[in-house]
């Protein structure tokens, strides 16, 4: 991993985040959507016991759905004015391109998940506890890294074209299963849902980390092939 490559990745991540800051898609569209999803879950599941027990899972479901939209949007911008093409033709290293885009996506998802956690506390009565904070943070980070890597790979493949958008959920959701399972169990352990101990959460963090690394490495290697003409 050369310094030049890391620098290029950082520049691309910054570019993506600047685009987000200017267009405010995450803030104006995705965030309200995910908040709405959390509310709608309450309608479907009723209040009281079920919601509180299901809170970790519902939160991550909301994140997952929001990831789909965010990825769609992020790659739609790229392909709309040929930006991805120009980056590729300009000779930007595809690994750097992948890492940069994934990093930006991860940052956006972390912001999202922080807000959603707050919503879960407010809407579902979830109660974070002091002993679980480290677990909570590590779970969130490892899970979002995995999701960001997934979103970038499949986004590069499926998003941004007519007739392709519907493909994205079909491709991502099966593969995102380990993240959903692991992240939910991790947060359950952190919050103490169903009397889960904090220590039970760490194997899940392990799983999430392995997932993020495996998908990240595969994605970095595959991205060049995917965006080739």
């Amino acid at each position, binding site marked *: 991993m050369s310094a030049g490559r890391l620098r290029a990745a950082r520049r691309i991540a910054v570019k993506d985040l600047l685009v987000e800051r200017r267009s405010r898609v995450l803030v104006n569209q995705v965030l309200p959507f995910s908040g709405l999803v959390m509310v709608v879950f309450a309608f479907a599941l009723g209040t009281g016991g079920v919601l509180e027990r299901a809170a970790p899972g519902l939160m991550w479901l909301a994140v997952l759905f929001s990831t789909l939209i965010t990825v769609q949007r992020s790659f739609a911008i790229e392909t709309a004015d040929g930006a991805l093409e120009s980056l590729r033709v300009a000779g930007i290293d595809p690994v750097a391109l992948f890492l940069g885009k994934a990093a930006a996506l991860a940052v956006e998802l972390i912001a999202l998940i922080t807000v959603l956690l707050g919503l879960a506390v407010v809407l579902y009565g979830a109660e974070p506890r002091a002993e679980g904070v480290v677990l909570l943070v590590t779970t969130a980070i490892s899970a979002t890294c995995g999701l960001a890597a997934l979103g970038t*790979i499949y986004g590069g*493949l*499926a998003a941004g*074209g007519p*007739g*392709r958008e519907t*493909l994205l959920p*079909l*491709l991502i*959701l*099966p*593969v995102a*299963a*380990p993240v959903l*399972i*692991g992240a939910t*169990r991790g947060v359950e352990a952190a919050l103490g849902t169903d009397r889960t101990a904090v220590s*039970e959460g760490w*194997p*899940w963090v392990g*799983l999430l980390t*392995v*997932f993020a690394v*495996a*998908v990240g490495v*595969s994605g970095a290697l*595959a991205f060049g*092939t*995917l965006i*080739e*003409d």
Partner: protein
Amino acid sequence: MTPTTSPQPTARRATGTRATRVLGIVTLVMLGWLLLFGLVLSPADIDQGDAVRIMYVHVPTVWLAYLAFIVTAVCSGLYLFGRRHSLGFDRVAGASAEIGVVFMALTLISGSLWGRITWGVYWQWDARLTTTALLFVTYIGYLAVRGLEGTRERRARRSAVIGLLAVVEIPLVHWSVRLWRSLHQEATILDTDLDVDIDGLMLFTLFSGVVAFTLLFVWLLLHRTRTIALDDLLASRGLDRAIAERRSEVTSSGSIGGGS
């Protein structure tokens, strides 16, 4: 070069050859054999009773589905990492995936019917079943990607990446579901392991099922791969013809770049 639209004295061949006809007949015989032994000649199991008969078709379909998946993955790798990027591998990968989807669906159907008898439920959230279901959906996604617009090379590249990613992802899925289910220890109540005291005749029936389905797989793969090759040829020819027509349009109208 003879134009392809000239009237042919003999009908053009389909995807069969003498070899596939022989293979097809042998496969049919073996499948009939399986039916006979599975339903009639083999004994019922001591524990499972007649439900074990479903296993004689279920196990071969599982085997076939996973074999097809492996063939797709291997051919994806051979296409992507081979020096010549031979599209032949891509075609085999695609054909294998089509067959795999069909047999994975059969696996889920036969498996849930067996489960209904043995466990009383059509479905269980254990590692094996869940992974199979997700693999099924992953395959469908793979086929959907193959259906996207683009050149053959682009299709091949995209699906090869998807196919190889699946190899990485499926073990992770399996691991996570297994870890998840082990938490609840429901697995001990509804045991998904085939705890069959295998009698010789039962083993023989099982074995003949696997052999029959393997032959079936090869037969299907040969036919599908050839058809995909034909379709690719037709598509590229259609493209060539469209380009040629467009070119003649432009030159006959005398102006270039005037219209849309």
